[in-house]
């Protein structure tokens, strides 16, 4: 095993699709672009301090989750008060062509459940890694993913 970090370009190439898709599920495809840049700019600055052999995938997705939360908060601040209730989730962002209904249902979930759902069922991460990204206990991560998928089944199945 190499003790040094891979070049950042290799790190970017290895994680860009997953990070972009995760962000699209968190903030919608339109805002995913900005969040993606913010995520990797922050990662580039901190990269030399990443310990070789640590979970780089969970690390970059944790940064991405923080940037997604920032973006949602900024959007809420921009929103006019009487529209506030409608903009808490990804409602209002363009739905991807594949399945707009499912997208809307995902968008209606609270951010933590949405993140847990994506990480567990799309990224196929073990609960332990989901917990690391969500910065919560493994039990809480398991619960969030379960509640998320249960709600989706109610509205979508």
């Amino acid at each position, binding site marked *: 095993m190499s003790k040094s970090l891979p070049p950042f370009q290799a790190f970017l190439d290895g994680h860009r699709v997953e990070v*972009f898709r995760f*962000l699209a599920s968190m903030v919608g495809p339109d805002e995913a672009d900005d969040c993606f840049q913010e995520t990797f700019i922050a990662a580039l600055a901190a990269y030399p301090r990443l310990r070789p052999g640590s979970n780089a995938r969970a690390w970059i997705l944790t940064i991405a989750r923080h940037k997604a939360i920032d973006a949602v908060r900024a959007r809420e601040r921009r929103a006019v008060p009487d529209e506030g209730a409608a903009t808490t989730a990804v409602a209002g962002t363009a739905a991807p062509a594949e399945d707009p209904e499912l997208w809307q249902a995902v968008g209606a979930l609270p951010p933590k459940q949405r993140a847990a759902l*994506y990480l567990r069922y799309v990224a196929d991460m073990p609960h332990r890694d989901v917990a690391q990204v969500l910065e919560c206990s493994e039990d809480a991560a398991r619960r969030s993913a379960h509640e998320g998928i249960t709600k989706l089944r109610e509205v979508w199945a």
Partner: protein
Amino acid sequence: MTRDIEGALKATGGSAEGAARAASAFARRAVDEGLVDVTYARTDSPVGRLLLATTPRGLVRVAYLNQAHSEETVLERLSARVSPRILEAPAHLDPVRRQLQEYFEGSRRSFALELDWMLMGPFSRRVLERTSAIPYGERATYAEVAADAGSPRASRAAGNALGANPIPIVCPCHRVVATGGGLGGYTGGLDRKLALLAIEERVATS
């Protein structure tokens, strides 16, 4: 029967093309904002495919790419020895690529590029700085370069320094040959040394 919710979820969301576009935009921004320690590009040349890498101080690496020296190996070494903040940025290397192209076409006899010597120790640096002073189209011997670098008996060490030249072509270690007319060695193999010397000889005598 319930629909395949996991499969549908996997098909939803950002595309790989979107990710590629976002990654390019990120790389441009990171370079513009000065957050990258090493940028690199590849270029084709008459002596094969080259990898070029630069730091804010200047050109730090020109590598001949081949099986023994893959792009991956070269970049991994740069990551370990310079910085892991490495991004591909072809536009950033345009001046280097342009000057190399002019050199290979015969319209350029010396390079006007800042160099970053950080991959060299003090002795190697002295040897390579002396080597940079050998005029276009001419040759010097290992012994002469060693003497110039202040260690007349260190021609073998000078040879090692030249063999490990991180910036070949631009720092013209191909102009250093063995005493008595032999070609000596070359970091990219003797065929390349001969090709570079042939270009210079043709241009210098035309």
